[in-house]
């Protein structure tokens, strides 16, 4: 495991902020995935991200405080701290959700049903060797724009890749964990099974 001292943190307030927002949103998605799929490894990733977010928030506070030169600026800076804390609250809530998976036997079946029925749900999509996705990077296929599904994690063999980057290349038998509406997820499934051969031919 990495030491937190060695973890890179963006070096300005703006980038730290964006990183915090993205991390918190990813955590909520992953937390729901872990509950729905009963995957402890995803839940553990959420808990690690929670520590990372704490670190980001700490850096945000330090930099924000450092930058105040007078009362007026200090007052404005409270809005940054305020927002950092709110984002941190979201990440704490996501971590508690993930924690529910780790403390097994506690989940009522209503919970999975509710996640499946919500407007944006989570889907698990296996990539068949015949799919046009194989061999392409996420940047090339741009699934968010072309199918409405956000890929939040990929399982390759026994390994998990969380929040895959644009240069991630899809391989046969990869299992994509995505967030989207039922319709969007079904559409992506058709592509992943190789039944739909063109991506993004909307209209």
């Amino acid at each position, binding site marked *: 495991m990495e030491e937190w001292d060695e973890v890179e943190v963006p070096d300005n307030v703006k980038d730290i902020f964006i990183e915090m927002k993205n991390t918190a949103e990813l955590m909520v998605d992953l937390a*729901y995935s872990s509950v729905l799929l009963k995957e402890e490894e995803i839940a553990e990733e959420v808990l690690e991200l929670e520590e990372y977010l704490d670190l980001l928030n700490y850096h945000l506070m330090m930099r924000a405080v450092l930058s105040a030169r007078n009362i007026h600026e200090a007052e*404005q800076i409270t*809005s940054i701290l305020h927002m950092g804390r709110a984002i941190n*609250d979201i990440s704490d809530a996501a971590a508690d959700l993930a924690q529910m998976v780790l403390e097994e036997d506690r989940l*009522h079946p209503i919970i999975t049903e*509710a*996640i499946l029925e919500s*407007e944006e749900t989570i889907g698990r999509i296996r990539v068949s060797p015949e799919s046009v996705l194989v061999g392409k990077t996420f940047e090339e296929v741009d699934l968010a724009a072309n199918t409405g599904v956000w890929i939040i994690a990929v399982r390759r063999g026994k390994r998990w890749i969380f929040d895959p980057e644009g240069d991630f290349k899809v391989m046969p038998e990869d299992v994509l964990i995505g967030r989207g509406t039922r319709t*969007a997820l079904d559409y992506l499934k058709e592509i992943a099974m190789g039944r739909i051969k063109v991506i993004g031919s909307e209209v």
Partner: protein
Amino acid sequence: MTEEEDIREYLVEMKDLSALMVDLAFSSVMYNSDEIAEEVYLLEERMDDMTLTVKKLALREAKKEEEPERLLSVIDLADINERIADAAYSIADIVLRDIEPHPIIRAIMEETEEELGRVRVHPGSVLIGKTLQQLKLPSKTGTRILAIKRGNRYIYNPGKGDWIEEGDVLIAVSSDMDKLRKLAGEDVDEE
């Protein structure tokens, strides 16, 4: 309807709403929109009511269950959604309070010509009865609809197959909000 069905429906709505609120909260800050921040405020009150209702229902349901402890997870999930909603409200509150936010908060959200707002669809509007696919709002008016508010319900991230009805309130980001208001039959000079 059984209590179990009730609970499930509430949980679905709470999950949808809390996600919508986070989206709207960040958007309200990004576009400095009081309107949308107020929308988040209203939703937050609704979330509070729903949380209490779910907790009561869960306790009632527990009497009938073989393993009543499992209902704890239902209460936990309601709580978690309420906390996310509270955080969203706290973000939107930056727009609503008097203290001017730090310039960096606006800078984060990048320079944009777009505007965020609520548009009510009036009787006779050309939008009524059309699906988003037919309307092609993104290409024709530079408009992205974040949500459609229909009565008390929200259609979050509406898709191509969703249609617009009279009385709907569109929560939208647009580079030409006036055009969207006109299409919706609103008097543009009204505000």
